[in-house]
């Protein structure tokens, strides 16, 4: 049973900096979530609250109906992979896997070894001697093999080369199919990972800017390209995120669903309607928010 995650008006401060402000979210299970946000948006803070690394200043975090902080039933059900400094770690990779297997109720050692082979991670090497990419692979293995009902991967790809990242994405999907659970992927590599997400949460300045299923989100974004005057007139009542002009041709990115009537009108005007990527939406939605 994968637990449902709820956050109600959660706020968190680091000294004078308000990292999270009145965050309210409901994350049904099982699902793969993409957690997006610019640097300092509050992603890691939010994830650390789910992992019981800390508790909110105000508001409620609930997993399976209970506050996870210091909860002996909930804490083992959440695994949080984040960048880890292994420089003073004296244990070998295999020892770290064995330690995780001792504490994690669902840890699958055979799967961990299989992943280590895929990532070409030497089991007998001390973790401190691994390159940053291999250390990230170790973090990914520890998180995926834990098979925790809530699996949180916070920029786990850092330092991995492109083939290793591809293996990581494949394994996230494959293991999710075998063991459906809540997987939260926090990332800056939006264009590379967007196909993994079922739902997207965008945080901006500590607030939830958007939480949508990815298909609905992508349906809401569109690019309109054509003669500048027609594009301007057509897009004028719509929510515009960005615009570009080259000679007499203008391209406008809009956010909001277009009705069938509007689509017919665009076709009649000779305007080209195109899809917008998640990365483009993310960039322009957060820019728009900054401009407010």
């Amino acid at each position, binding site marked *: 049973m994968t637990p449902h995650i709820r956050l109600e008006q959660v706020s968190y401060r680091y000294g004078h900096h308000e990292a999270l402000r009145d965050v309210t979210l409901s994350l049904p299970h099982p699902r793969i979530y993409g957690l997006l946000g610019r640097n300092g948006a509050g992603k890691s803070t939010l994830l*650390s609250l789910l992992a019981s690394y800390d508790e909110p200043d105000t508001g409620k975090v609930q997993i399976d109906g209970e506050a996870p902080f210091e*909860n*002996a039933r909930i804490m*083992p059900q959440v695994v949080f992979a984040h*960048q*880890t400094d292994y420089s003073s770690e004296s244990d070998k990779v295999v020892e770290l896997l064995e330690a995780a297997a001792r504490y994690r109720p669902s840890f699958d050692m055979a799967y961990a070894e299989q992943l280590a082979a895929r990532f070409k991670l030497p089991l007998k090497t001390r973790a401190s001697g691994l390159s940053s990419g291999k250390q990230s692979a170790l973090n990914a293995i520890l998180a995926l093999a834990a098979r925790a009902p809530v699996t949180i991967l916070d920029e786990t790809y850092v330092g991995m080369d492109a083939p290793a990242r591809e293996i990581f994405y494949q394994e996230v999907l494959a293991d999710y199919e075998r063991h459906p659970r809540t997987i939260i992927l926090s990332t800056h590599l939006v264009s590379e990972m967007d196909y993994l997400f079922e739902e997207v949460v965008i945080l901006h300045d500590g607030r939830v800017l958007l939480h949508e299923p990815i298909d609905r989100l992508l349906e809401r974004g569109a690019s309109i390209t054509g003669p500048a005057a027609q594009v301007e007139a057509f897009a004028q009542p719509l929510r515009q995120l960005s615009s570009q002009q080259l000679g007499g041709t203008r391209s406008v990115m809009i956010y909001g669903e277009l009705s069938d009537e509007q689509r017919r009108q665009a076709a009649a005007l000779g305007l080209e309607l195109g899809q917008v990527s998640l990365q483009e939406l993310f960039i322009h939605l957060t820019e728009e928010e900054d401009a407010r």
Partner: protein
Amino acid sequence: MNPTHRTGAIIKDLTLTQLSWASYLLFGVILFFWGVRLFTSDPEMLNRTFLDFIVQPGSVFMLILGLLSVSGFLTFLVKQGVTRRTYYTGVAVSGLLLTLALTAAGLLLHLLFRTLISGVEWLPPMGYEGLAAVPVIFAQMYLFYLIGWAIGGTFYRFGVVPGLLSIACSLALLMGLSYLIGTGNDLPSLLTDRLDNRASSDRSPVPLSISLPSLALVAVLLLALMRLMTKRIRIKIK
């Protein structure tokens, strides 16, 4: 794994890990003890028992283990889904078991070496007659462990300046404790300046009926402090 089994597993893991490190310490002290007998003719050194040899490095070793208990074990265990309460119990009990093991090993080696080495007028360990020093050694090493834990916890939770303050407070506490332990001769050398006049005096050690309950009380207070400090401690992402 239910919470009770989990706590048991963590106590076992922490104890075994720290015991493996303690074995290096014991080996080093044994080498030093025999090295002194081979290369020194100083009668005061030659007449000191193995218990006297182990109490100082043992205490410093326990202090270091205590220091590492927050940065080393807390983040790792919470990352594995272990509660702070279980971590606290694990560290407190494993420290106790480790101190017990180290004291027992010291006592056994002390008895063994006394049997092997004849013709020596052994000085009373820490000024105590017979084996009365053993419970004091146990208490001293565990207190050093708790003090190290408190310093490590203060640095981790509150930062550098409060951490440095906690070192100053710990030194003051150790000076206070030195009045309760032996004749003061066997506290680690960082305190010997203060203890010079006591070391040269002919004072008898503090009676166990006073020192042991007092040391136990300090240990209980430190344990309570550590529970308060770690109860809701924020885990740093590193």
